């Protein structure tokens, strides 16, 4: 059914990701592990066409952009992972003519049923976040499943029941949890760090949140490095004079 479940009920579970733009280092580990898991799990096959040819292309569920903000000395680059935000009012679901695209009532995960998708691509047009990629070989739409085949998977150790991207992140920039529960770790993180929605004015009500980069100090690390030549003209202590002598002897 492409009509949306009521997500306003108290205690409604809203599983999603919180992505920290301050600590993401753009290593692509999340994108690679996502691809690795999903090409053999629910979304299999997650096809690449001509992967070793001159113009490789393929369906990926997670893409890491690089953006730059600020001017001059205050300019900074940051990495921006982009995947499905599991919106509360996802137009990708309501435009689906077959009911293949749906939002789960029990946890809010947005999924595509690969057995009923006709590959009309309209859902990808309805998504402002570019979260859906068409698998040309499989003829159906692919998207982030929030690793629905991991998070409830009793064959995995409890600590592994997380989305592959979250498990793979080496800097802990990706967090997974219930954003419908205001006492959950992810909800507290969003509150404490001022987590935000992407394109909030479009009113898709994304569940996933992004944490802003922390405010940077004016001078890099506050360190004003002293030039090497003047090392000897310090406080005149014994150690200082010894280093000064070594410096001169070696010069």
């Amino acid at each position, binding site marked *: 059914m492409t009509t949306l479940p009521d997500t306003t009920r108290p205690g409604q579970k809203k599983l999603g990701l919180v992505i920290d733009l301050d600590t993401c280092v753009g290593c692509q580990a999340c994108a690679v592990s996502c691809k690795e898991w999903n090409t053999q799990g629910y979304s299999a096959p997650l096809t690449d066409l001509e992967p070793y040819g001159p113009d490789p292309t393929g369906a990926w569920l997670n893409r890491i952009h*690089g*953006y*730059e903000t600020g001017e001059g000395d205050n300019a900074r680059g940051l990495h921006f992972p982009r995947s499905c935000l599991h919106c509360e009012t996802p137009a990708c679901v309501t*435009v689906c003519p077959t009911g293949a695209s749906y939002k789960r009532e029990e946890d809010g995960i947005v999924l595509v049923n690969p057995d009923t998708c*006709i590959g009309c691509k309209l859902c990808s047009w*309805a998504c402002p976040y570019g979260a859906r990629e068409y698998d040309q070989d499989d003829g159906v739409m692919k998207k982030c499943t929030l690793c629905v085949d991991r998070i409830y998977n009793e064959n995995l150790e409890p600590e592994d029941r997380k989305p592959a991207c979250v498990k793979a992140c080496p800097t802990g920039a990706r967090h997974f949890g219930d954003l419908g529960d205001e006492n959950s770790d992810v909800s507290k993180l969003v509150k404490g760090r001022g987590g935000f929605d992407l*394109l909030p004015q479009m009113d898709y009500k994304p569940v996933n949140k992004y944490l802003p980069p922390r405010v940077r100090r004016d001078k890099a690390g506050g360190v004003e490095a002293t030039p090497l030549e003047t090392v000897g003209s310090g406080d005149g202590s014994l150690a200082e004079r010894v280093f000064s002598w070594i410096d001169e002897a070696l010069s």
Partner: protein
Amino acid sequence: MHPAYSVILFTTASGAGYGLLALLGLTGANHGSASDFWFGAVSMLVALGLITVGLLASTFHLGHPERAWRAFSQWRSSWLSREGVLAVATYIPACLFGLLWVMPDSNETLLQLLGVITAMLAMVTVVCTAMIYASLATVRAWRHWMVVPVYLIFSLSTGAALLFALASVFGRTGIPALGVITIAALTLAAIAKLIYWAGIDSMKPIYTMGDATGLAGGVRQWELPHTSENYIQSEMGFRVARKHGQKLRMIVGGCLVAAMVLVWIAFAIGGSTGPVFALLAVVLAGVAAVVERWLFFAQAKHVVSLFYGEQSV
């Protein structure tokens, strides 16, 4: 947006078919049975043929055409599903109307009723086609209030050009009302398109890269996530037409004006050469519709382009 040829063929061919069907329905409702069996039969076959070709073309771009029947299920929320349901539903009264219309001594009341129902369903189907695009918040050019009127007017004007040509082929060039309606419809199509183009050209951007990324302080893109074009870029980031946009718009306008002149010539000279001009008018109206539809896709920017370097949409 990437202009898929199957979608352009579908929306223009079925659009012309539904326009012709609606006009035939109204003709039946107004004047009773078809004046000539072959004129009636061929007109109905052309209308239903174009609709069928269009519907089949629309399945060409599907990943799984064999599952297309599933698209009839989600009419509660999906305009694409509604279009599918209405497209198929229209065949029922249309076929009944066609049979009654070409047969002698048909029940006039029933004929009129079926004619009106067919015309209404045909137009509502075209509205559903337009609403597939007009309902997407992600493509601002498609949210313009003229999108639905343009789809309707192009459907009716290409349908009118077809009806005029069919009538003249069957020796009925002397119907002034038909010529006037065709020229009026083609004029309206040109005016509607001018209003739409002026509207989308003067749209002020309302979403920025800052809104998309949530980052303040003048966001710029410095690294793409992938080394070659992905699905999002090829489907939603289509740029080819922007360069030739103005010339292509002139071609649409020129074809529409030429089609009007040809209809007028066909009407004025009549006889055995009149139908040639009338058929040429159909070709030109068709070219105008196809180029217009191509531009409708190619000149529409998708919000997702904000993630791929576009500063505002």
